[in-house]
């Protein structure tokens, strides 16, 4: 592992967080409607408004507020909710954990289902299994999560097929089965697009690998087709899938906004929608920044894992 490379990647990730938080600050500061009016309602007295502005630190110059905000982002302090007065971090943390549980389960489902299907499609390229899998992936790619969520909710939570609860969340300490039972349906609903995407990526990189010279050599040497596929091709063929999984993490951080809303799942996405309705600025800022930071971290991790697994990249740097 090249430490200089690692250091550069950390610097880029840090810079990204800095720039994104500046933009989020800029946009939310431009918002119409003052924070004091959000707290007090529109018929507040002049003095009360002034008092709230002082309490929130909004009477300070903009650049001080800006530095304070960006500094807060790096130390995990997002201020207090305008509506409940609770510290944002306190509201956010449990919700973030719940959203991550959902995202991880969804990610695992997509890997377990999509990668084998992608390999099968590549191995049977241009034959019936490939055709079936590829056509299915088109449908998956084209169903927005709010449609698949609604359909799953309609068919699997009401009689005659009331297999799942309609929504909500049960903490794992109250029973792992119950926890998973509540998590599975939203995770599936989130999956249609991601699954299709991972599948297509796996298929195309496997197809490409199977056509490469070293695979041809292996075949000519008389290596059994099974071994060609699982021993020689798989390792290289799956490398790009790591990057795709990280990209999908970003997609998930967006789609949880919709999925959690539909399944009344008390995570970050549901919080953002509420915060937008209430114009609760600190919550909106944190709700957009935290998933973005999570995504930046996921990309960073994918980059590092990729570098560790790909022998070509290592060779080039040593």
């Amino acid at each position, binding site marked *: 592992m090249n430490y200089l490379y690692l250091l550069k990647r950390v610097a880029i990730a840090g810079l*990204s967080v800095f720039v994104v938080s500046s933009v989020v600050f800029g946009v939310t500061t431009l918002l119409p409607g003052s924070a004091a009016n959000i707290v007090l309602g529109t018929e507040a007295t002049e003095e009360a408004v002034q008092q709230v502005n002082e309490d929130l630190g909004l009477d300070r110059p903009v650049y001080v507020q800006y530095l304070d905000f960006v500094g807060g982002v790096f130390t995990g302090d997002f201020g207090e909710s305008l509506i409940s007065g609770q510290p944002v971090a306190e509201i956010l943390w449990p919700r973030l954990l719940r959203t991550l549980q959902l995202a991880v389960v969804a990610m695992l489902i997509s890997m377990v289902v999509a990668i084998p299907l992608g390999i099968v499609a590549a191995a049977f390229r241009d034959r019936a299994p490939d055709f079936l899998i590829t056509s299915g992936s088109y449908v998956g790619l*084209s169903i927005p999560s709010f449609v698949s969520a609604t359909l799953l909710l*309609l068919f699997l939570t009401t009689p005659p097929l009331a297999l799942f609860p309609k929504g909500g969340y049960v903490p794992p300490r109250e029973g792992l089965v119950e926890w998973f039972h509540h998590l599975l349906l939203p995770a599936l609903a989130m999956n249609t697009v991601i699954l299709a995407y991972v599948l297509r990526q796996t298929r195309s990189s496997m197809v490409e690998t199977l056509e490469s010279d070293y695979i041809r050599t292996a075949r000519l040497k008389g290596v059994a087709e099974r071994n060609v596929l699982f021993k020689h091709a798989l390792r290289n063929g799956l490398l790009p899938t790591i990057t795709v999984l990280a990209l999908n993490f970003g*997609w998930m951080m967006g*789609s949880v906004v919709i999925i959690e809303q539909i399944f009344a799942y008390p995570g970050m996405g549901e919080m953002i929608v509420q915060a937008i309705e209430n114009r609760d600025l600190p919550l909106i800022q944190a709700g957009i920044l935290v998933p*973005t930071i999570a995504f930046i971290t996921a990309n960073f991790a994918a980059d590092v894992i990729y570098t560790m697994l790909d022998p070509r990249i290592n060779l080039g740097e040593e």
Partner: protein
Amino acid sequence: MATEDATAETDGERLPPIVTALATNRRILVGLALLVPVVVAAILGEAVAPYDPTETHVAQRYAGPGGQFILGTDHLGRDLLSRVILGGRTSLLLGFGATALGLTLGVPIGLLAGYVKGRTDEVLMRVMDIIISVPTLLLGLLILVALPSNIVNVILAIGVVYAPRIARVTRSATLSVSEQEYVLAARARGESNSYILFREILPNVTGPVVVEGSVRVGYAIMIGTALSFLGLGSGPPNPDWGFMIATAREHIYQTPWFLIWPSLALLVTVMATNVIGDGLRDVLDPRVTGERQ
């Protein structure tokens, strides 16, 4: 690449193979067969819609398909077929508008970065990476929290979200093209930078850019409907697929058709753009993008 070999030939001899390839590609044909009816219906709009999409027929709420209303009616007794047709206008306008904006912003940035290289490239691409690091739906939400939600701002939000992705594709195509002999020749002839960029490079990066754009149309429609599903779209009473689906969910036990039709229209449209995108990729071969550079 075929186009390179053909530079000596005249345009008249070079074009037909591509046109034939496009016109006979099975995926493109299937995609067009799905997309064209939706587009035509959306353009004709009121002319083909059997009813005024905002006209309510209170006595016939939740009507099923068949009968007086071909696809049935919604919770206010409005004709679903007419609403799906005019909702398509919003979604398509959004998909194509946002993609056009994304191309307008992204292509010049990508061309510049790939052609000038060096520090400019590094800075531009770093900025693009940072924009990409915000999950698309969240960036859209952020923009629409600050701006009033109407169709123009939705297009603006999605266009900005997509510009960096298009810039990336354009850049990597430009990188590989800018080392080609005809570009070096043009430079040796003393052509201006803008001539080289727009006359020599741009025509030769259109393949990957067109492929990227065609895929973006579908995604833009999806994000647009997702935003209006969350109540940040063009808003009622204009019919809009995302908003129709959001409303239909509340009336799902009265009539499933209210949900089914706009969902199906959305599915068919997005699927068509995906299939066309793949077909274009087959023909225009994006391997030229030079991802490994």
